């Protein structure tokens, strides 16, 4: 059975009196270890689909099955547990907590579990090593470059060793050289078995993915 299964998934919003169909009957199966690039114009429903896969946006129709779990059938608390265990988010604007240091941001997903301080520090150091930020653990976020901030965000997404990495335009705010670095990190992670689903506008990055999915007006076009 596929890792992710959706069948005729839909999401409708109301904008004033107008009904907006953000995701329109999308059916999709994603296997473990795939690297999906999700492309399409602005407003095509890419980010909405991503948040729906991440358990943060309940579909209007149908369900999202991940690892045989109907995630929107879970209670709010169990869904939060699911997100922590299965999903790592990476955002275009990094979305780090500005008043926490680099290592504290990386440890953020561990704040609700019972890991000891020592174990948390070891895990965070090990992940920061992977993204080559081991020397910057005590820095505040605003002391880092954009590329470094995105690497911190990736480290935070990885700290709980999730099966799925959801990246919403992770290189959108970065220069081409830094973007390549970030894409290489994502590729390395994918090669270790993680399923990566990445929203991007940049067709160049299709080359990193194992499958490219195109969306238009909320519909899957290929």
């Amino acid at each position, binding site marked *: 059975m596929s890792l992710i299964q959706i069948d005729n998934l839909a999401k409708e919003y109301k904008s004033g009196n107008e009904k907006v169909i953000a995701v329109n009957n999308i059916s999709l199966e994603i296997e473990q270890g795939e690297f999906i690039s999700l492309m399409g114009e602005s407003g095509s429903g890419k980010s909405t689909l991503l948040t729906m896969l991440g358990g943060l946006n309940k579909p209007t129709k149908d369900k999202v099955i991940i690892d045989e779990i109907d995630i929107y059938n879970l209670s709010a608390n169990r869904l939060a*547990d699911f997100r922590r265990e299965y999903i790592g988010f990476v955002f275009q*604007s990094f*979305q780090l907590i500005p*008043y926490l240091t680099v290592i504290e941001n990386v440890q953020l997903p561990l704040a609700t579990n019972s890991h000891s301080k020592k174990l948390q520090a070891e895990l965070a150091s090990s992940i920061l090593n992977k993204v080559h930020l081991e020397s910057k653990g005590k820095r505040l976020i605003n002391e880092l470059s954009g590329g470094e901030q995105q690497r911190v965000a990736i480290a935070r997404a990885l700290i*709980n060793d999730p099966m799925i990495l959801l990246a919403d335009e992770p290189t959108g705010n970065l220069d081409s050289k830094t973007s390549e670095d970030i894409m290489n990190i994502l590729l390395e992670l994918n090669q270790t078995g993680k399923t990566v689903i990445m929203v991007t506008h940049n067709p160049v990055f299709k080359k990193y993915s194992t499958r490219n999915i195109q969306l238009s007006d909320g519909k899957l076009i290929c």
Partner: protein
Amino acid sequence: MKLYNISLQSIRRRKARTAFLVTGLLLAVASFVTLFIVSENVNQSVASDLDEFGANMLITPKSDGLNLNYGGVSVTGLTFESGSLKQDDIALIKTIKNRDNLSIIAPKLFAASKIDPAGGAGEKNIIVSGVDFKEEIRLKKLWQVNGKYPAKENETVIGSEVNKVLGLGLNQKINLNNEEFIITGILNETGSQDDGLIFIDLTKAQILFNKQNQLSLIEIAARCYDCPIEEIVRQSSEKLPGAKVTAIKQSIESKMTAIHRFEHFSLGISSVILIISLLIVFTNVNASVNERTREIGIFMAVGFKRWHIIKIIILEVLIASFAAGILGFFIGVAAAKIITPILSMNESLEINFSYILLLTSAGMAVLAGLLASVLPALKAARLDPTVAFRSL
């Protein structure tokens, strides 16, 4: 990294917001503490003044007979069967548990005497009151005397009515029980029984009327601010089984009414301050939650549950509130030390460090913080992830 670390770091590194939150509560707590200490001093000062403004307790010998009515209480002993009230009883009264509440103890001996004004007006009947002038003057704050109070044992001060009836004058000599006294002072009209009395030294009166160690009554001004007068009456009655101890309730009630007015005033102001502080914290935390939508979205994305978000926000407010409570206490005490002498209520004010007031201040601030932050915290936790995520 634990949830409390997030709250602590938020407080530590978001200095402007923390300062605003702490300052709002700190001012409220400091105002409360200042007002509490100042009003406590006002109350004590007023209570003390009122307590000394006339007696609120009367001790008379037990008797079945009806005799002199003194301040609304009948007094035995004018027939001089007053053997049951002794000079030594004063010492006994001072041994009661609430002796510290006894402010003024004014013993008296009444004696009927013939007066022979040296002017030759002829002998008249008069009541002589032997008093301890030091205590009596403290007790009778409304007394105004023309001349001066007696300093020697053969000096006397007379009531206005006595003066009118007998046509006496200052420095005039009068004979009481064949002994000569000089009038050193004449009391202005008081409207009380004092207008018809002649006052001489208590010890002299006891010797003059051969009533050594005897008393007709004892007037007491007790501080009732922190002790019910009924309790002092009960304790005194136990010590003096042969005496009748009476509380002058009208006097007590009027005093307590005055004191309670101050207490109600303080309570009213404190309540207003508390409400204002609640609004300050509520507005502040609510604004903070609105600003932190993005942050709440991040918390949701990394798997925080609703109560985790509530815990972070409330903990943050509680830590800031606790600090505000402690700081507010010390600032409030300092302000009270400055304000109280300016208001001239008690220049010799000594404000003792009160752990209870410190804990109350901290507790009040924490409670205010908790009350004001619950709704915004719930609002944050109930934030629709879609809305929170739209800002990411």
